[in-house]
């Protein structure tokens, strides 16, 4: 997780909203990529869960975009995707071939915790009251996302606690 070239102290509400949208976009894309990877490796349960996460991130992204347009129209933004790295998106190395649904959910939970940590760490540097309120809201939103993932985890049957290694062969060098 990293951020480049963002001055929190002078962040405007418009750019803060755009930043939040970019963070959701990045997470949505990553989950889409993970879902495709799981399709390719014939693990439909993990793919299904990652698609559920795609929907969650997309929904949140749409809500934020609507707010941005309502308040600032199409005024140009000073933030771009090159400035953010894996804020809410799970790290690439969180995925594995033949992931179980449980492992997929654990990876998503870890990235929601990571995103929460991002907003917590950024808050002290923010001066603008509206931006602060937005970041506090986003921080709380990440807790909500964690609750959603935990609810999915709770729905899993106990035998899904088996480790991936229990049913996946070691890669065979030839």
């Amino acid at each position, binding site marked *: 997780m990293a951020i480049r070239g963002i001055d929190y102290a002078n962040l405007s509400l418009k750019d803060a909203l755009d930043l939040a949208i970019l963070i959701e976009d990045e997470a949505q894309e990553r989950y889409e*990529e993970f879902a495709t990877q799981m399709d390719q490796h014939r693990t439909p349960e993990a793919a299904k869960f990652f698609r559920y996460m795609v929907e969650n991130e997309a929904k949140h992204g749409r809500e934020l975009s609507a707010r941005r347009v309502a308040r600032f129209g199409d005024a140009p933004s000073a933030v771009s995707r*090159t400035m953010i790295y894996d804020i809410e998106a799970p790290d690439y190395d969180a995925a594995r071939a033949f992931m179980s649904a449980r492992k997929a959910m654990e990876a998503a939970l870890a990235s929601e915790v990571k995103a929460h940590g991002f907003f917590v760490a950024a808050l002290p540097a923010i001066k603008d009251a509206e931006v602060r309120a937005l970041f506090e809201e986003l921080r709380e939103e990440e807790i909500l996302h964690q609750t959603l993932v935990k609810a999915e985890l709770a729905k899993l049957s106990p035998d899904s606690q088996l480790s991936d290694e229990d049913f996946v062969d070691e890669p065979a060098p030839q």
Partner: protein
Amino acid sequence: MSATGTCEYQPKDYKSDLKPIWCPGCGDFSVVQGIYRALAAIGRPPHEIAFVSGIGCSSRIPGYTTAYGFNSVHGRALPIAQGIKLANPDLLVLAAGGDGDGFSIGGGHIAHLIRRNMDITYIVMDNQIYGLTKGQLSPTSQKGRTTCTSRYGSLEEPVNPLLYVLAYGAGFVAQASPTDLVGMAAVIEEAIRYPGFAFVNIQSPCVTYGEEEHQIKGLKAISESLAGLGHNPADRLAAMDLAQHYGHKMHLGVFYRNPEPPPTYGDLVKERQTLLSKDALPKERILDLFIKK
């Protein structure tokens, strides 16, 4: 113009529709992201970029970009990239591949692109293994490493890619890793901007055949930023000194940037062409040179 309106190109403009078939978790996923970001920062349109690779998991990378791509022949990315650059000097030319592709079968080519100062950026995804062919010893595998081709442990010292290119006189040498994506995109961008041969070694873990200490966690434990160490990238000998730690420490950032880059081979060729052009025959009369009058 991008959706957010700040710069003309966004990373996604360099992402193709082809779905990567790398193993989930492979370090190369981050490398391609680093490349998208660096290209967006450079801002050249995809059709002005040629991206050449050899053969290997890592060499699939051009296909995942919107640049003109050539997933060529094992070990031959560099000569092909060189030909493309000479034939069409205005193209931004990138070459990429694995440690096997670059330092085993293709190792002999590097010296020649360096001594000519070809204006090409060469990215090696160094995972210390032959990934595509399922886990054989590679030229950068550690001594003692057990693989299917070294059942009792390898008896060979690894190649040190950083020292290798520094010793031949490369003008830009850097190292990056998915452990620091910001740094990775920044050094790739800087390498592309360098006027001449630029080499970026990326420690990109193979999650399927790689060793535990070469995974993200292990790499993080041995990583150190060159800028943080106060290293002066204009000091080639200091760079060589630091490069000796390859395999034990993972220094990230720019090892060496020649403060006075020599002319590129392309520049010299252009100069020679200008010089000779006054006596040159028009194209349609070239055959006359070979026909006895």
